[in-house]
């Protein structure tokens, strides 16, 4: 138990987790009462991206080089850490938002991959960049299903049964987590 607590503290989780869930709830609240279902989808996706942007700060240690020398097997640990983050943020969003659960969980998968990828590429302090950079333009564009490029670019707000959107989320999620698990943060 104690190693787990120390690990979580080393990843700023005690501060970031409440902050992240607060961000999720706050973002979802902004569309409370809005009747337009697409508006609920937009805020749910933003909420997931915001929550993971905050938790993404913990996708690496303060001194990555020191971490790398540790004997612990990092890849599974990193996978579990990011995975739990996605499940928590996605789960809370499903609970507080009226957006379809499938859309929210798809968003959690895609955005956690983007956060993990950004952490692996630019460091943990910039882990927020890719999820935010995809979420903002992604949710304002009208979610057209044709052409394919537009469907992929707007994957977060596509309908629940959209195959291109699901594929985009899976590729981003699995790819991002894999790169992060193998490389860690710079």
């Amino acid at each position: 138990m104690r190693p787990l607590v120390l690990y979580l503290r080393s990843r700023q989780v005690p501060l970031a987790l409440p902050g992240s869930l607060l961000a999720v709830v706050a973002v979802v609240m902004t569309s409370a009462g809005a009747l337009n279902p697409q508006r609920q989808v937009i805020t749910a996706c933003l909420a997931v991206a915001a929550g993971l942007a905050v938790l993404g700060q913990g996708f690496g240690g303060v001194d990555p080089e020191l971490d790398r020398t540790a004997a612990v097997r990092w890849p599974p640990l990193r996978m579990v850490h990011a995975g739990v983050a996605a499940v928590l943020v996605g789960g809370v969003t499903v609970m507080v938002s009226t957006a379809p659960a499938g859309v929210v969980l798809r968003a959690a998968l895609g955005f956690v991959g983007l956060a993990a990828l950004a952490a692996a590429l630019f460091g943990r302090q910039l882990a927020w960049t890719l999820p935010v950079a995809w979420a903002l333009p992604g949710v304002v564009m009208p979610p057209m299903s044709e052409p394919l490029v537009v469907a992929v670019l707007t994957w977060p707000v596509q309908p629940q049964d959209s195959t291109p959107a699901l594929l985009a989320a899976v590729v981003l999620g699995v790819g991002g987590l894999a790169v992060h698990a193998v490389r860690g943060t710079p």
Partner: protein
Amino acid sequence: MSARMLLVELRRSTAIPIAIIIISFGVTNFYILELTDQTGLWQPQWAMLAGLQRVTLIVLWPAALAAGAWQARRDRRSGMTELVGTTSRPTWSRSLPAAFAVGICAGLAYLVVTAAGAVAVSTPYQHLGWTPIALVGALSLVAAAWLGLGVGRLLPSVYTPPVLAVASFILLLAPMELSKYRPLTGVWLLTPNMSSPLDELTTLAPAVTGGQAALFAGLALAGLAAAAVAKRRFALAALAPAGLGLVAGMVVVSAAPATGLQLDPAAAAEVCTTDDGPKVCVLRIHADALDSLTGPARQALERMAVLPTAPTVVREVVDDRPGPQPADEVWFASANHTPGEGWEAEGNALSVRVLAGGGTRPCGEVDYRERGLTAAWLWGAYPAPGPPLHGTEGAERLAEWERIKTLPAADQLRWFEGVRAKYLACPGGGTP
């Protein structure tokens, strides 16, 4: 400020990354419309280019704010606060090079996107009235970057940039959502991002652009002040330029029409044929489509020569041009023109469109059946050239045509003049 330090900061601060983000997103936004065949949203008119780019600010503002906030934390992130704190240069002076580097790059990057879009603009209406819209957009991005610097200075946390980005995005989403239910008015007109693109004939009222310029100048100064004050507790002073900008902006914008939009009179000016034939005129914005209209329009005038009061001129008019329409003129609604493409018909079919409603524009309570039938009556055949009608409407219209043709000639003319007179007299003239 040291020019040399500005140069260093231009190269080493967040200035270049934010410029790259702005340019890549802005250019993508223009050209992704090629994929969905929507380039008509900006290519036919300079003001549409400037207006569509302003729509993208909903994403670029959060990006510039976040970049500024990230830049503001550099000393802390690099462990330089102690060393920098022991130097003699005052805080305001030392914060200027990075602020100017980020501000210059954000503003210039916006204008680079404008230039990249300008390459594809194709219009007969060359003017500079659109440049203030673009320049105010660039100014607003400078303001966003500097506000980011200021907020980052006051809240120097690693969480500030992402939270700022998402929060500002949600704020900017509010006017967009609101605009779906009612036109934006008053203070809402001051938001940096426009909620919908402009059309060919509409432009932002100068008072709106002026009010926005005042607000963004105030916000830019506020951000700079918050980033540059000696002690964080003095940052309240930044509220002064922000408040002043807001008040000035609201005063100036109150001089604008309620929706903030107005008809661009120069774009709607007439361009007419200069040869000896009957006069045909189009809006200036469609000047390059005059030739393709002239033939069909004159053919339409020939068909109307049988009327007791035969019109002698065809004018393209904005859709709800105020009436009454003179009986010796044919008014042809500009809705028959697709921006960026041309008239929605050609040859005989275009003539028939000119003849619709007896050479009138749709106005008031529009009855398309009688407008179609009057065109066919003038043309002398049913169906007249043009897209065929199917289903019950097609059958009922044909039955009506058969009925009219059985009437005596005088009654037919009376029926026709009745329809035409209704549209000629229609007052029209809502705000565009």
